[in-house]
């Protein structure tokens, strides 16, 4: 099998690449810096003896993604599954963001994924098989002061994957969506979090074990499911109070 991983050089993407390589799957890895990609490719090929292709690609640029597909038209036919653990944040993602930043964040976290899916899904439908895995974030559960556009993009992505699941309901295409809490990756490095960070490696194994199963939306770690339910049933006014209290606690920490 051959899988394509977006954002494969760090955090969850890197763990997924190693998890799939250990199971002897061929890989196509995509990320922003060729040096990181080359290092991972060499390591995977030497250690696991699998062929790895890599492409340097900035997912926050729509034109560059278009160029990538124009330059590599055959890649769509070769891939059995796509995994998109993409997470791009900027230092100051607030309600006052400028248009350039806003577009870049939306493009990287939402637009690029929708575009990749739109390219692969016709082939998967034709083959009546394929795996598509997306990753949301618990930051999309509730409005917030920081990472505003990032959270919005992640919430929109959740909706997109629900639509994708409905659209592929009658096929054998495996669609998975994970709402991910704090992970022990660089995205949350140095952040003081109220709840503990979970292992990206463990999540990578869960993702692999869920290949070829029916549509799943999984909260990782699981307790975020209950927090999400709470958020949905508590009136927004109370949530505002909780938010203020927890935010104060984080700042004090």
């Amino acid at each position, binding site marked *: 099998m051959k899988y394509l991983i977006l954002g494969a050089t760090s955090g969850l993407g890197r763990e997924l690449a190693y998890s799939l390589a250990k199971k002897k799957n061929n890989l196509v890895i995509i990320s922003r810096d060729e040096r*990181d990609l080359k290092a991972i490719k060499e390591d995977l090929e*030497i250690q696991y003896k699998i062929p790895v292709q890599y492409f340097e690609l900035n997912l926050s640029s729509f034109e560059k993604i278009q160029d990538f597909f124009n330059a590599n038209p055959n890649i769509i036919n070769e891939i059995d599954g796509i995994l998109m653990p993409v997470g791009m944040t900027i230092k100051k993602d607030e309600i006052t963001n400028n248009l350039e930043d806003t577009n870049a964040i939306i493009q990287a976290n939402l637009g690029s994924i929708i575009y990749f899916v739109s390219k692969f899904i016709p082939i998967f439908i034709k083959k009546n098989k394929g795996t598509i895995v997306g990753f949301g974030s618990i930051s999309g559960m509730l409005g917030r002061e920081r990472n505003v556009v990032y959270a919005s993009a992640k919430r929109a992505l959740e909706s997109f994957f629900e639509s994708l699941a409905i659209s592929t309901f009658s096929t054998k295409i495996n669609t998975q969506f994970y709402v991910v809490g704090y992970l022990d990756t660089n995205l949350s490095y140095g952040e003081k979090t109220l709840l503990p960070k979970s292992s990206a490696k463990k999540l990578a194994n869960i993702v692999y074990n869920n290949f070829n199963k029916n549509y799943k939306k999984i909260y990782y770690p699981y307790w975020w499911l209950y927090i999400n339910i709470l958020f949905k049933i508590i009136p927004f006014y109370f949530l505002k109070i909780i938010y203020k209290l927890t935010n104060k606690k984080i700042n004090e920490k």
Partner: protein
Amino acid sequence: MFEKKKITSFDQNCSLEIFIKNCDKYKELENDSRSVENLITMGSCYSYVAASFKERSLSINIKKFNRILFFDKEKKIITVEAGIKIFELLNFTLKHNLWIPQIPGHPFISIGGAVASNVHGKSCAFYGTIKNSIENIKIFHKYHGWLNLNSEENNNIFDLTIGGLGLTGTIISVTFKLQELNSLNFLTTVKSVKSISQTIDFLESSDDENLIYSWNVIDLASDVNSFGKGLIFENKISQKNNLEFYKKIECTSKKIIFPINLWNNLTIKCFNYLFYNYHKYIKKNLYKDSFSNVVFPFYNKEIYFSLFGHKGFIESQILISKEKIHDFLEELKKNIDYYQPSITLFSLKKMSGEQKYLRFEDNKICLTFNIVKNKKNTHFLNELYKLYIKYNVIPSIIKDSNLDKETFNKCYKEADIFREELKKFDPKRIYRSELSDRLNI
């Protein structure tokens, strides 16, 4: 974003609040290095001393740079990123019956740390230090950027970087020339000796290709003739071409420190008595030994260090010439009789090489001892430093967190040359640690 963290050196003697960043991308490493005035690189943080951190300064942790970048089995060449740990490297190379023979005592030490400390290992009488296996090093320096270092390209920086305590920049990758290892089994011979003098005689007459080290008892009541009775362990690579697969070492170790120190003269005496008599009378004096047992003597025996408690211990490791060792030991014995220090471990082995800059290597006898950290023992150690100067001893700077600038300057003849060369390369002295500040490097 940097994380504020309290980090303690392996010997528990230095605990500082630092800023730390785990980088996993090359761009990130460049940006973070450029964003601060001073920094130092951190591998596994297994150095006895604070070599990878400094108070309120940035430590860039490169543990995610742990990939194998190149491997040629025929040419026996491997290039690895500096964050890879010794055991991870061996888990791979031993599958191909290859290794680097200069392996430090703990498997979790990073390759970058090993190069920056110019580590040796039990095989140092024959194979010397890790310097002898290095073909190429790639570093990143805040101002100089990416540099390739080898005997032809940037040779002077190459020389400064090996054993240079990470002060020339962040070591990113290292290329090694590997050696063949025909068997993963060792035959260990244990021989008892009546004194340190007898140990030295044995070391002098032994076959350097085997891994030989001693374990000596510092019995406070002993006379000069029986001072340092003990055991000599000789590990010989089994000639039987065995296909038994190397048992992979997994990363499971966690540092647990006892709240109080449990090593004192009574417990040391009891332990020494049991250990000596077990090997002399119960265990066979010739037995099969596994690779990890021989190469990593402290792996899964970390409790030895934990028993020192939060106050920790001091390890002093020195190189002394064969001509001077007997006089030195005589004076050492006098100091031991006077101060009655709690010495938990005393060991000798042979070392080969040529001393240069800050590197701990020479054609000398290597003597190692651990002592409990307390006021009395520190006085004892300070007296020993005078002997180190008197007998032209080279003390290891990455082992002894008590070592002062004066002793270091007098014992390391090339300390000033190193300082000058480093200053020429990096006039702003960007890369600094508690260790480099303490020794004014």
